[in-house]
């Protein structure tokens, strides 16, 4: 199994060498050059990530990173996985694809169908990976993308191992990547429409006030009983831990947990058995902290001890493992 780690312009050559030495096999990143930023800002980005620090904003820096990564015999993938683009964006966008290709990028991550078809028309010898943001939740979707020329499917964040097993068994000619560490969104990326930006935090992390009511049908609503309210409020408190609301992670995470966040260490064996070929560390924007995740996965793979007890000891915060709310897979 390969370890695929998200990087950005913050990481330097020694940082890349360190990640590779810890076991990273592939690196993926986004690009947000000035000429794009000047017109579309970062919230209508070239990809799904919308903070400047999550990208490479300088082609020379990316060129250098590609050279380092290739010298280490590792691969580099560039994500152009915004959910949608409009016509006026295409000249710049396709120019960025062309530059990436000419710089020797090994694969592109794509979500939008128009972009997928336009890249295919270019006949570049480059692999296409279908983004987790495309929503491959079933066998038929994977078959469709396979028929269009995709090399790899990146599974969405919220899938069970059994669901992925079925899809892989039904489409054996593809590579499959799934999330293993860091940055699990509460909602489904393919169907989440607010942009990150324009608010203090992402929409899903906004600290809204909330009230619970009962819907009796049509326009009839009413209040809930105190018991229902208490049950909901208790559930809400636990959901905030699951969704890693700011208050919860500031309370229960140890400093090293911030560098790992959600995790699937103890599922690695099962993921290998079903045919997952790459484990994704979703660390764009946090490339300087990603070494710990790579190190922990590498340790589990090298020791070939996939037991829950061992993985728990590697994660080193048994309390959050027992809670199960930071697990990618249960």
């Amino acid at each position, binding site marked *: 199994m390969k370890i695929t780690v998200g990087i950005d312009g913050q990481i330097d050559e020694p940082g890349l060498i360190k990640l590779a030495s810890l076991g990273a096999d592939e690196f993926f990143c986004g690009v947000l050059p000035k000429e794009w930023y000047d017109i579309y800002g970062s919230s209508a980005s070239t990809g799904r990530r919308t903070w400047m620090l999550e990208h490479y904003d300088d082609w020379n820096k990316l060129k250098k990173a590609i050279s380092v990564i290739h010298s280490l015999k590792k691969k580099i993938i560039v994500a152009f996985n915004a959910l949608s683009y409009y016509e006026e964006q295409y000249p710049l966008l396709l120019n960025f694809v062309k530059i990436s290709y000419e710089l020797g990028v090994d694969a592109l991550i794509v979500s939008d169908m128009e972009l997928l078809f336009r890249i295919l028309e270019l006949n570049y010898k480059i692999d296409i990976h279908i983004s987790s943001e495309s929503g491959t939740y079933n066998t038929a979707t994977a078959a469709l993308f396979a028929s269009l020329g995709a090399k790899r499917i990146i599974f969405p964040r919220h899938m*069970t191992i059994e669901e992925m097993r079925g899809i892989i068994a039904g489409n054996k000619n593809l590579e499959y990547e799934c999330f293993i560490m860091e940055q699990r969104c509460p909602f489904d990326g393919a169907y989440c*429409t*607010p942009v990150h930006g324009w608010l203090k935090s992402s929409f899903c992390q906004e600290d809204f006030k909330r009230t619970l*009511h009962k819907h009796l049908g049509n*326009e009839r609503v009413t209040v*809930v009983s105190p018991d229902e309210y208490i049950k909901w409020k208790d559930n809400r408190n636990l959901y905030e831990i699951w969704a890693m609301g700011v208050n919860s992670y500031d309370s229960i995470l140890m400093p090293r947990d911030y560098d790992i966040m959600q995790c699937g260490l103890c599922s690695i064996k099962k993921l290998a058995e079903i045919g997952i070929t790459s484990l994704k560390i979703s660390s764009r924007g946090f490339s300087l902290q990603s070494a710990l995740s790579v190190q922990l996965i590498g340790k589990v793979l090298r020791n070939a001890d996939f037991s829950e007890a061992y993985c728990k000891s590697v994660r080193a915060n048994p309390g959050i493992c027992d809670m199960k709310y930071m697990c990618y897979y249960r």
Partner: protein
Amino acid sequence: MPVSGESYMPGSKAINNVRKLFAEILSPLLEAGSRFIRMYFGVEFCQHLIPTLDELKSVLAIADEKKLDITLVTPYVTDEGLLSLSKLFEYLEKRTKKTEVVVNDFGVLKLLHDNYPHLKPIYGRLMNKMTRMPRFAKQLPQGIKPGQLKAYQRCSLLLPLYKKFLLSMGVERLEFDIVSQGIKMDFSNSQFRASFYYPWTYITTGRVCEIGAMNLSPEKKFDLEASCRRECQQYYVHLFEEECGCTGNCEHKTAASKYIFQKGNTIFMLCEAPQPVIKNLFLQGFDRIVYEPCFPI
């Protein structure tokens, strides 16, 4: 127990006024004699709510009695959901009348295309990736770049290769939400017809359902494999920010919608678009309104 229209329940007024919204905003724009001609049945957001074949048959009987056409609405699905949908498709395929199916999943679109030529796919609003931001409801952010705004007002559905693909898959209708920043797309000569949903704009959705975990033990909560008790059919949550006196740094608070609701696994915003906005949509080629008298879940 007090029911309906209680002003102390924040947000309830909005729900109480959906029909009024229809009567005051939408109705005057419709041609005299316009009537409901079609019933949308099913669910867009959760495969646990896919209707059974018996439920579908009951609704088809009602539709026939009321002389309404029927559109089956489907969510994004895993293989388990595909199986549930296939049972409904098998039945609908045999009907004399060609039935519309709203698809919100590439796999469902492929399934229809490959196996059910008698069913007519409609490209649902979840396949439409336009930005939906409650924060834009009353005012766009200061400092928004013209290019950014254009990107928010458009999506890729009418671009040539995507369009060719959709037409090859039998899609002739695309569906939209009304979004606060406006839709700058024209369907008049696009080869597609277009619908918009009114007045509930969906914002985001996810397979992990907060309210669906309410009656589960802590170890089963928020687990994809756990079964809910369909709490979404009972409760809703109103999300709001408290007003503040600040007029500078809190621009987003005054600009944001006050009518954001979570029902089940999905967050919706009540559309507050004034009449001219909707009138313009008709001029842009929208020829179907999917009216939702209550939460679409």
